[in-house]
């Protein structure tokens, strides 16, 4: 039932890792290099400290049962002095290393957080909701603003500013393959910059505990070549396709006459609900229920029939649909490319 998007998507190579260790853009790459440097240095220090701590174990020591040879073993002043020197040097080295780490980390922080160079930029507004992502592609021309959900499409090589906020509780936007996380806080707007340097699929997931279905609040960030991105954008700008056969027509009627239209928008029809994700190009999406299930008719049927079973606690209402209306409804929704 709750088989997950990626399981089936793996075959189509959609299953890029959601990993900070597999960076797909310059911001994440800078962080990754810093991590490797920190890891190398800190591992070395750790090993040295542990060896130093373990040495006394291999020098003469007494088993617990043995009689003590002498009551105490307070070393002489010369030993203490030498020891003081060693500890002083070790502390000084620690201080120097830490200063270096602060400097490096602040400078990498600056480089990885801001837009790092001139060039094309775009802005995507992301709004967290329990438990899905509202996505809006900003444009100076109001007619070219696109609204989408649970997926972010970006062109390769373009610096993208994510402007994030939340409608309810605090969420955190995180696509580890491209950038660190940024909290989405109601009544505040946070920004972060990211950039993909290769086409591909990057999974992201909410990283701030946001209630019952925090675990099922994922998204896909899809990086296209500039031409593919333009094609995708042009398609998104169009209103929903009209039903092409009688089944789809019937499905549209079912959608519009039922409670579905209260929450969802399908541009080009009178469905204009603002509560749930925009479904104008629903069939073009990879997943349903914010990364919970791969988008296909079977899963969609299950999701509509009993959302609470698939994602307990979801705010998606269970809308009664007559048995004979189910297939047309699915046909219609899956036609909304």
């Amino acid at each position, binding site marked *: 039932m709750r088989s*997950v998007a*990626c399981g089936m*998507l*793996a075959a189509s190579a959609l299953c890029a*890792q959601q*990993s*900070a*260790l597999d960076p797909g853009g310059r911001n*994440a790459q*800078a962080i990754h290099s*810093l*991590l490797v440097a*920190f890891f190398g240095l*800190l*591992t070395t220090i750790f090993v040295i*400290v542990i060896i*130093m*701590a373990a040495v*006394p*174990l291999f020098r003469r*020591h*007494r*088993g*617990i049962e043995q009689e*003590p040879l002498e*009551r*105490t*073993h307070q070393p002489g002043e010369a030993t203490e002095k030498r*020891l003081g020197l*060693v500890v002083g040097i*070790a502390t000084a080295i*620690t*201080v120097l290393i*830490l200063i270096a*780490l*602060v400097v490096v*980390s*602040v400078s990498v*922080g600056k480089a990885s*957080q801001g837009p790092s160079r001139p060039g094309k930029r775009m802005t995507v507004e992301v709004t967290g909701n329990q438990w899905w992502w509202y996505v809006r592609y900003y444009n100076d021309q109001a007619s070219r603003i696109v609204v989408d959900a649970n997926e972010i499409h970006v062109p390769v090589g373009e610096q993208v500013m994510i402007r994030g906020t939340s409608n309810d509780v*605090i969420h*955190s936007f995180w696509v*580890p393959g491209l950038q*660190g*996380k*940024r*909290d989405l806080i109601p009544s*505040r707007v*946070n*920004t972060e910059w990211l950039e993909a340097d290769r086409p591909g699929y990057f999974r992201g*997931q909410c*990283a*701030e*505990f*946001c*209630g*019952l279905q*925090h*675990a099922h609040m994922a998204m896909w960030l899809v990086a296209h070549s500039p031409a593919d991105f333009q094609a995708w954008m042009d398609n998104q700008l169009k209103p929903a396709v009209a039903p092409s056969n009688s089944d789809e027509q019937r499905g549209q009627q079912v959608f519009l006459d039922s409670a579905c239209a209260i929450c969802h928008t399908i541009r080009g029809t009178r469905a204009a609900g603002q509560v749930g994700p925009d479904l104008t190009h629903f069939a073009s999406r990879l997943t349903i229920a914010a990364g919970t299930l791969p988008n296909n008719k079977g899963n969609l049927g299950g999701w509509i029939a009993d959302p609470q079973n698939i994602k307990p*606690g979801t705010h998606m209402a269970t809308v009664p649909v007559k048995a004979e209306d189910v297939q047309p409804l699915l046909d219609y929704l899956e036609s909304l490319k």
Partner: protein
Amino acid sequence: MSLPLTADRQVTHEAPERDLLKRVWTNAGWFSVTTHQRLGKRYIITAFIFLLLGGIEALLMRLQLGAPENTLLGPARYNQIFTLHGTTMMFLFAVPMMEGMGVYLVPLLLGTRNVAFPRLNAFGYWMFLGGGLLLYGAALTNTIPDAGWFAYPPLSGPQFSPGKGVDVWAQMITFTEISALCVAVELAVTILRMRAPGMTLNKIPMYCWAMLVQSFMIIFAMPAVMVASTVFLLNDRTIGTHFVNPAEGGDPLLYQHVFWFFGHPEVYIIFIPALGMVTAIIEANARRSVFGYPAMVLALVGNGFVAFGLWVHHMFATGLPQIGEAYFTAASMMIAITSGVQIFCWIGTLWTGRLRLTTALHFVFGFIFIFVMGGMTGVILASIPLDLQAHDTFFVVAHFHYVLIGGALFPLFGGFHHWFPKFTGRMIDERLGKLSFWMLFIGFNLTFFPLHLVGLNGMPRRVYTYPVSLGWGPYNQLATFGAFIIAFGGVVFIANVMRSRKLGAAADANPWDAGTLEWATTSPPPNYNFECLPVVAARQPLWTDSPEQGSVVGLRDDRREVLVTSFLEAKPQSRYVIPGETIWPFITAVGFSIGLYYSVFSFAGYYVASVLGMIGLIGWFWPRRPLELRP
């Protein structure tokens, strides 16, 4: 070789005087106890029960996460359990356990008869118990908080967390913070004013320094959580203030700032006493005073100060200005300096001493390994760009379990083995002790090391399930396996304690041949701790042959009298009659508890608490002569 404070040099009492002392310090009854040893033991045992409950919750979580798409626990139950786990471990186990060890040990290490405010001590224990009963009583009626141990609004606010779970959580904090403040105040005063004559500031045992630093940290940190949980959250929930409600102009980040201003020092409140225990164990088993005493003390105090300056590293992802973030990076890394100094000094002590490999010392070596690794990942988390990737993932879960289990629990177990003869008068079995150490050590690393990796591979915290395809399954499986090894290690430990308590070899006053004052009296010590209060002239009075050491004479034995000494030099200043056994702290705590329980449901509960609490306080402070016995 004669040692001044062992029996041969101590002034001892004649039989009638000793009998008088015994009668004056007799415990009056279960609910009236005010002696520090009894209360300390109660703290330790109660907190240990909460450790077991928190541990069971941890196992349930590990079982759920052991396989992808597991359905053992649903999302609602899972969220409740991780909230209970964090809350229990932080507020009902770690802090009270450290307090309990302090309540038991500090007067003994200082050479006095009780803590400065024995009734406050009793009141603190009963409030702690009241808080624990509130949380788990509510759990039995399925009113379980589910917004995390940090309860960030707006998720914890009235709109997104209806029901009473979060109210229970917030009011439970009130109980435990009152309790912690009681202990902090009484230990700070005890350490500053009731030391054995001659125990100048630079002769205080390191463990008492640690408790002193911890006490001051509690005094500054706990009021902050009171502001967050009670003033902001509870008032928003019960009387409709909008301190942290963004919909009405409140600011959820304000809550985070205030909460972490408490929450970060909280971690140090837990592990600083443990650092003191490490020093005590090393000194006794490396057979020398710790190397670099002044540096160690300054590092402890430095830890205490710096701890209040780095709360923002819990909030790097909230979008604060970069310049401020750089400051908090530097502050966070400074902790590595003060901790580093202590680690170096301990290693120096181990190098130049002669080791006796007791179970306690095993735990110290385990501590060094785990804690240093936790320190290393802490440096990673102090760096903003790295933190933005690792924050709120299992990397952080791994990090703070390394720091808290390694930094606090291992020394605590070590300390428990070390002081077990003093607590019970019997030796603890070393073979079983070492077995439990190895199980805990191996189990711990198996559980938490893989979590670093799975965190960097993208697994966020607080998810009740995860898809197969992301490849997180094997790491989690290993962690779950390790968790059960930890659990078996715990079982071995409990069995060892149970067995040794009854069957262990009898312990004499100083089985480890250690140097500090708690070992100068019988195991277990009498209620009055020392027949005659000791006078000391060195950091390790039992290892020091000095004519200046000896016993205090002139205190009355027919009432509960202790010596007050000066703050810096520990010069005798006055005699102080401390209160005896009384039931009023218990009655006061019951009164407050009834009112505060009721306040979960209605604001009127606060009035009830005031009235009932006031009745208790009137009885408590009713003027009466101190108990005096005739010889």
